[in-house]
């Protein structure tokens, strides 16, 4: 079974983040890393491909400047190859545009299963995988906390407001996974070395058969009007616990008339 895993390379979320004051897009300077949310899809893909007894995992990603550092991490985990759509025209793309670009790239890999995170850590729009499924003409199951494949169907435990549903769906399909779905492996030294020579096919928007004028900020049909600091909550009183910290909590609960 061939699995495509959609991955995003993002600025390190632990580092300070900022918006570009002119374009209102996230500043993406410095090294990009594999979005932590995507490691679960990569791991799930590797396990499912292995269990099926053949086939492999192809990463599909998009970046305006040819960045590959995050892809190497996922290749080091065990993915066989990557397709990277890289084009300066992609800067400022909205989720629908991203889905259109990724759909074109994914079609080339002819996957049985497409995996993605439920949402990215930096933009968390959370609709791209379903838009992708619709463009690919595939069914989709979102918010998977358990995934298995048998006799041409994917079975998913899908989170719901009340608990979870067991959902079955014929392949090919798009499934979005939560962070609890599997425990991602750490790349081994051997994996890291092997990743350096694994193929990353780089494609431009025109090479995918799309019009560069219709993607990126030009193709987006939404814009940011303004960005202002929130009326933020002020940090309150901070008490270092000396064994009596609980008593301050009791006083606070008293003030609120909760006890």
């Amino acid at each position, binding site marked *: 079974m061939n699995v495509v895993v959609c991955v995003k390379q993002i600025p390190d979320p632990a580092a300070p983040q900022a918006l570009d004051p002119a374009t209102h897009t996230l500043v993406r300077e410095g090294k990009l890393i594999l979005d932590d949310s995507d490691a679960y899809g990569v791991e799930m893909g590797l396990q499912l491909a292995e269990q099926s007894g053949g086939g492999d995992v192809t990463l599909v990603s998009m970046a305006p400047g040819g960045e590959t550092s995050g892809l190497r991490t996922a290749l080091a985990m065990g993915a066989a190859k990557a397709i990277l759509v890289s084009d300066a025209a992609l800067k400022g793309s909205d989720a*629908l545009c991203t889905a259109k670009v990724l759909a074109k790239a994914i079609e080339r890999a002819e996957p049985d299963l497409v995996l993605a995170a439920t949402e990215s850590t930096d933009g968390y729009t959370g609709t791209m995988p379903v*838009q992708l499924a619709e463009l690919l003409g595939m069914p989709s199951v979102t918010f998977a906390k358990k995934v298995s494949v048998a006799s041409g169907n994917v079975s998913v435990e899908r989170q719901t407001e009340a608990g979870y549903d067991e*959902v079955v769906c014929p392949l090919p399909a798009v499934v979005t996974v939560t962070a609890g779905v599997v425990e991602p492996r750490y790349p081994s030294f051997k994996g890291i070395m092997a990743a350096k020579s694994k193929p990353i096919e780089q494609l431009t928007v025109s090479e995918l058969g799309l019009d560069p004028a219709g993607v990126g900020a030009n193709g987006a*049909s939404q814009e940011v009007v303004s960005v202002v600091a929130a009326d*933020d*909550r002020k940090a309150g009183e901070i008490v*270092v*616990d000396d064994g009596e910290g609980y008593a301050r909590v*009791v006083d606070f609960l008293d003030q609120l008339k909760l006890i």
Partner: protein
Amino acid sequence: MSIEKVWVVAEVNDGVPTTTTLELLTEARSIATTVEAISWGPSTAAAAGVLGEYGASVVHDIGDLGDALPGVPVAAAMAELVASEDVPDVILVPASYDGRDVAGRLSVRLDRSVITNVVGLTADGDEVRSEHGIFGGAQVVTARFTGERPWIFVVRAKSFAAESSGGAPAQVVELARVDAGAVDTARVVSRHVEERSGPKLDEAAVVVSGGRGLGSKDNYAMIEELAKLLGGAPGASRAIVDAGWVPYAYQVGQTGKTVKPTLYMACGISGATQHLVGMKGAKNIIAINKDQDAPIFSVADLGIVGDVLKVLPKLIEALRARS
């Protein structure tokens, strides 16, 4: 062109619209004169009274979807209705599991992009502006659509207060289900409800949440006990839900529940963006965490820098003594 008609994707369980549905209907009334609901399920007709009371003049009822996941059939029926000349200016969709599926599918069928994670809306003449918190809510982004209508906004729970307009019951109009073919093949084979006792997490006046700082699953019992002593609901960070300590129904945050209680207690939770967006609206916040640099302290009214495993037993004992 002013904003005339808004559709609200209305989720109904056992004949009762969800609270978020009522919030969206309320907000829709302040954007446009005509508000209509799109709904599905075996019990939509029973909800027509309440949907009307909150502002819907019509409910387009797709009917019982059986065991199909709602995303595809709901979006397909809505797209068909748009194609039949009935074009709304704005479509409001709740940021729920099924709501996000509907929005994604509809976006492609109508070839319109979506704006998600909306926490505020303002109609201003010919346009609608949406508000979003970013970087854990430290900054507010205002956005708008520049393309053709309808504009699809996916709105987070508790962004607006639900208020009745005292309207008459909505007129139920059947909306035919369309054959969507291969994309509509995901089927629910069984549904599992993970029961919890006490007040509902998103309605409780007090929420006590635990995170990784608890160290182990067994220690979550302290969170449950504390919640019980305060008449509140226990909650959790994504980290411990993903670790399997508690069910997903307990999760507070971006991919979980949004809560706005009188008091939120975060115990052993660092306060990642993912968590902050789900609880920052609480009136009062108490945080207990070992790491004095944890982001949770930047929103806490009272922060205790200390080990939850030492502070909580004493706190529980003190509260027991008073009850």
